[in-house]
């Protein structure tokens, strides 16, 4: 059973999510293979961000299962019942994923370098020097060599988001989660962030990206998911799906954004 599952890096089975009376996710299934760049698009309120946040347990799920590399997230299943994990165990599971937020959420009281070092130094417990070396390499990789001493308040939105990507990468996650990474940026800064994400995609890391950038989905994605009203309406390869959507709802959405 385990060998069968581990083909998928992320496997979400029949996910339901309720916010009080609101049924935000209505039985979503999603499978992301290792090395795949899965892009989720859809109108706002369609549940795509919620789905992403269920992967690293920032949202609890009301029904269904989330598996990362075959490991059930958040619970131990015994005799058909779900036993919640402790906060420490959940924290350990979250190290499999790295997340980049729409509004960056850098730690404002730390410099860019300290932000990137935080994970290796204080979660993984690496020695300071090793963490610093890794952080400098990553800042270099996202094109911010020499910006390590700046505080987030002294960086542009695009630079902040690139630091946030470096911070997530520093934990060497199995899966990178991007929650509308360019939606809060000025138009001229979107490109520099997308370029970094593209580079990452080329390097073969598994990614789930929620975005409104259809061009990015076509160019970089190899698995496109269209969500509407808490359901996956259609999925497939981006180029075929964007060229000839099968579902009328997908077609209607694409006609508005393309």
């Amino acid at each position, binding site marked *: 059973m385990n060998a069968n599952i581990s083909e998928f890096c992320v496997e979400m089975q029949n996910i339901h999510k309720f916010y009080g009376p609101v049924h935000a996710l209505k039985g979503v299934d999603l499978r992301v293979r290792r090395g795949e760049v899965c892009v989720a698009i859809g109108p706002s309120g369609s549940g795509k961000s919620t789905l992403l946040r269920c992967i690293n347990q920032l949202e609890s799920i009301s029904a269904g299962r989330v598996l990362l590399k075959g490991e059930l997230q958040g619970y131990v299943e015994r005799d058909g019942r779900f036993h919640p994990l402790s*906060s420490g165990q959940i*924290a*350990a599971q979250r190290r499999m994923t*790295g997340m980049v937020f729409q509004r960056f959420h850098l*730690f404002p009281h*730390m410099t860019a370098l300290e932000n990137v070092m935080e994970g290796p130094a204080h979660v993984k417990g690496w020695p300071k020097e090793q963490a610093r070396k890794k952080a400098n390499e990553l800042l270099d990789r996202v094109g911010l060599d020499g910006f390590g001493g700046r*505080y987030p*308040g002294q960086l542009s939105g695009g630079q902040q988001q690139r630091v946030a990507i470096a911070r997530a990468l520093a934990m060497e996650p199995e899966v990178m989660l991007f929650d509308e990474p360019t939606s809060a940026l000025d138009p001229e800064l979107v490109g520099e962030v997308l370029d970094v994400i593209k580079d990452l995609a080329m390097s073969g890391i598994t990614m789930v990206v929620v975005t409104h950038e259809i061009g990015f989905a076509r160019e970089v994605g190899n698995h496109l998911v269209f969500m509407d009203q808490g359901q996956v309406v259609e999925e497939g390869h981006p180029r075929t799906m964007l060229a000839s959507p099968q579902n009328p709802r997908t077609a209607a959405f694409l006609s508005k954004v393309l």
Partner: protein
Amino acid sequence: MASDVENIATGFKPVAVEKPAITRNIVVPRRHPGRWLAVAVFAILALQIGQAVSVNPNFHWDVYLTYLFSPQVIRGVGWTLLLTVVAMTVAIVVAGLLVVMRDSDNPVLRGIAYGWVWFFRGTPIYTQLLFWGLFAVLFPNLSLAIPFGPEIVSVETKYILTPAMAAILGLGFNESAYLTEIFRAGFNSLDRGQAEAAQALGMKPGKIWMRILMPQAMRVIIPPTGNETIGMLKMTSLVLAVPFTLDLTFATNAISNRLYLPIPLLLVAGTWYLAITSLLMVGQHFLERHFGKGVSVHPTRAE
């Protein structure tokens, strides 16, 4: 008033043909006659008040000078400082615990924290101090025992709850209730995304509190806590309710009762309270600067 540089920044840019040949606006500083008038009026007032106070024999400045540094007063200053620092430390530790309890998943802990704040904020500090003083009468012996079972150790309360101890616990516990609310406001002021970003890194709750939330909340917490510390300094004068009789107010009152001269000794006490407050304000300034890291780095914002 405005320098040339500021003037350019605010948009009154003259048309410059070439880059090095920027013609800066010639700005004639505004005149402020009102300020000079205010200086004159208040200088005269200050002189008159100064004179009235300094030559007035009722102030007994000679007595003031005699007792300002008298051993009894200095000891009172020492005890008042000690009470302030230790009681405030107790309050900060307790409030730190309570604020984490308030946010806990455990409903029992949440309830205890809520009840603590409700009780210590809802009863007068003077009453509480009286009760701490009477504690040894209410419970002459403190003992560690198995409930309904045999006693393990027992000790007389008066050896543990000395007047100094009663004063510290009384002041500290009372203050902790107020500080809890201040701390809570500080933590609530943070963006929820900060905790989420730390969670996404795989950080455990304790680390998130200590490394991510606390340093940021401090910026909001420190100014009102400075207020409370200064309030505590003056609240120590209530410890005669315990009764604790070594603090500054008690010392100066004792002397003035002996001399029948309350005014100069009130001035002595006031001088010392003001001096300590000034010292505390310097400390607060440095704390604010430390925890303002990453926020007050913007160059246009005045320090």
